């Protein structure tokens, strides 16, 4: 009997299987938090957006923290409404992105925020490839902390990126290097970027292989597993610990595949998840569905970190990778990606989570729902909510829609 089998007997009652790698994940993230704190004290910390070309600051010896990830933590600890409230008291509308509101709220009252807030930044690096709001959010934080803002501008693409577009974004890279040099009294080396790029690429490769393993039946990972496991690929790209974790994860995933073990005990329905998950109810929500045999072998959120730096011209690679992230490509590209995932992962249907806070991700779902259904022939449903602000989540309304969708599969 294998160790895995022994563990099986202990967790017989649970509908989902715990990942062993989660404990390594916790260790790594804790270390990361502490390093961030230390970096801040040494004046070497920048806050970055999740789509930022982080390899550049890492190359230049600048540590990075992720307010969006911190937003997920705030959501998971169920203090979203409270912390967002601090920002609302300052006059920020409830209609604004809840990552931004919770970030602004925690900057205002770090002592009332989880982990005493994110460590103070010396610079704020925003890249608008994930949305146009980040600049304004970081502007607000800049006002509060005094840290200067830098915008890495990646105008949204439509199909192939024209050369004048690429040239402009390349100038952004040069400007970024200059900004970081001046702000942090540090320098850039292409040699070092190549090394960092390789580390980043290795982690992405390992992560991608774990993602692809979910094409198997049963799927070795559910989306909740991936939403946790994505933390290092977002926050630790270009570092060794990220590789360490994704190696461990891949090993465990491959073990599960070879033994025919799924992330959930009784896999009957395979669905696609679209958009950022509701962090404040992530386990209850997905395990509730798991109890009904529903697993999510693929989702558009965790599949969004897939580009690595390669080639002779690394700066060009930075331009290409970061201009062409999922959220920067337009509606057609989103629909294509979703249809591709449904086909590749043999999915029976899809759920689109309409995150009120996130216009970039969510507007267009009403149309893409129709297009995806048309092209794939599988049914789907749009449910409404938010990723951090639990006030915007109506259980009954969501359950009715989910129930109706699942009834279609009987």
């Amino acid at each position, binding site marked *: 009997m294998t160790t895995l089998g022994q563990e099986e007997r202990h967790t017989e009652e649970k509908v989902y299987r715990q990942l062993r790698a989660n404990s390594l994940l916790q260790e790594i993230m804790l270390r990361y938090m502490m390093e961030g704190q230390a970096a801040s004290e040494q004046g070497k910390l920048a806050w970055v957006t999740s789509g930022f070309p982080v390899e550049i600051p890492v190359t230049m010896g600048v540590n990075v923290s992720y307010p969006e990830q911190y937003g997920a933590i705030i959501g998971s600890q169920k203090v979203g409404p409270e912390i967002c409230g601090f920002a609302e008291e300052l006059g920020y509308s409830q*209609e604004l992105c809840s990552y931004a509101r919770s970030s602004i709220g925690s900057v205002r009252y770090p002592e009332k925020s989880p982990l005493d807030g994110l460590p103070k930044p010396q610079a704020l690096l925003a890249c608008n490839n994930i949305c146009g*709001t980040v600049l304004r959010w970081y502007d607000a934080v800049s006002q509060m902390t005094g840290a200067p803002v830098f915008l890495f501008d990646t105008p949204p693409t439509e199909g192939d990126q024209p050369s004048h577009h690429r040239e402009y974004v390349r100038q952004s890279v040069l400007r970024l290097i200059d900004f970081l040099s001046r702000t942090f009294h540090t320098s850039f080396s292409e040699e070092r970027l190549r090394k960092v790029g390789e580390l980043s690429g290795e982690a992405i490769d390992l992560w991608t292989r774990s993602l692809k393993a979910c094409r198997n039946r049963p799927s070795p990972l559910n989306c909740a597993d991936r939403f946790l496991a994505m933390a290092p690929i977002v926050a630790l790209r270009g570092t060794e610990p990220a590789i360490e974790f994704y190696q461990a994860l891949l090993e465990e995933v491959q073990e599960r595949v070879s033994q025919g073990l799924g992330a959930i005990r009784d896999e009957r329905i395979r669905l696609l998840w679209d958009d950022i998950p509701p962090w404040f109810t992530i386990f209850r929500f997905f395990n509730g569905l798991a109890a009904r045999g529903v697993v999510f072998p693929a989702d558009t959120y965790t599949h969004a970190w897939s580009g690595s730096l390669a080639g002779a011209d690394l700066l060009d690679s930075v331009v290409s990778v970061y201009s062409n992230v999922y959220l920067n490509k337009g509606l057609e590209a989103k629909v294509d990606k979703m249809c591709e995932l449904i086909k590749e992962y043999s999915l029976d249907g899809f759920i689109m989570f309409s995150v009120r806070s996130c*216009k970039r991700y969510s507007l267009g779902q009403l149309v893409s729902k129709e297009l995806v259904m048309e092209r794939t022939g599988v049914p789907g449903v749009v449910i409404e909510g938010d990723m951090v602000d639990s006030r915007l989540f109506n259980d009954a309304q969501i359950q009715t829609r989910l129930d109706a969708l699942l009834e279609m599969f009987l």
Partner: protein
Amino acid sequence: MGYVYPHAPLEIIMAHGLTPTLVRARPGIAGAFEASLQTFACSYTRNLFSQRANDQMPASSALLFPGNTCDSLLNVGDIWRVRFPDDIIFRLTYPAANQGEAAVHYLADELRSLSQSIEAAFGRPFSEEEFRDAAGLTRQFRSAAQFLYAARVVSPQVLRYSKLAALIHTFLLSPDQKSANEITNASTQVQRALARSRLLDSAKKIQEQLIKRHLTPAALPHGAKSPRIAIAGGMIDPGAIVALFNAAGIPEDALVMDLFSFGFKTVFTPPCEVGRDPFDSVARSILASPLEPTQEGLGVRLAFLKDVVTNLAVDGLIVCEQSFCDPDEFEAPSLEAEASKSGVAVMRLPIDPELSDRERLGVRLQSFLETISPRSGR
């Protein structure tokens, strides 16, 4: 060609023999967006979409949408193309960062690309001559409108705000010699009136300063009425503000300055130069338009706001927030804080194109006016 976002390349469009016409959100449009847009899409875009879905959109051969200005407009452009596949849609993607020459080159190339698309779609090539005429027209319009803005700072009663808004709207709806002459005539009349009251120099000085974005304390006439209100916001219809003011019984004279996209920002966009590459010229002109919140530079915008309220003897600032508009709603607290620091009373005005809450907004405005006291030292 209809356009939605304020900083449209008017001269380029006109160089192709097309008339750029501003398509705005309007009150009284029945909601028809629910099949395509969630309620958290910006209310301005929902109104535009509803117009199109109801067949209430003013006739045009094509529509120009922007990219990289805000997420609602970006998505709505994409959704529009799926829902109305027979519409001819162009997209101009703007730079958002302070990247100096790199941004200019990028935008110039985008404009070149747009120009080629227009030619391909309509078979009308770019004409240098028509470009020059267009540049002259917009220069004439802006020059006259700028003066009127400055004139109203010095003497708000010399021209009703609604009249100024109407003149601007007419030009933006139909930029031709007729509408340009209309506003030029108004400007001439106002110049005469100010000359009679010996305020002309003062107004001209303010115009210069506004163009340079550097103000000094304005010399206002004795007995200048109070309170003096400035109003800030994004893609708000000045006409809607007039309607609210009228409904609330507030005199238009109280409004001495707006900082709206379809007002101040459009009017004080520098003219594009002729005699050089037209795309480069227009790109420079667009990128130098003041106060654009979809671009890097909050600090600069706040400094200018401070300048305005301090030097133009403003007693109260109204900060408009379009419902579900990210740029407006993110910036509003900063604008409010900056103005308050300068000792100015501030009111936030949540607004949508349908003016759904007209009654209550009117009451709010009225109360605000009643509670403002003139700044000391006047």
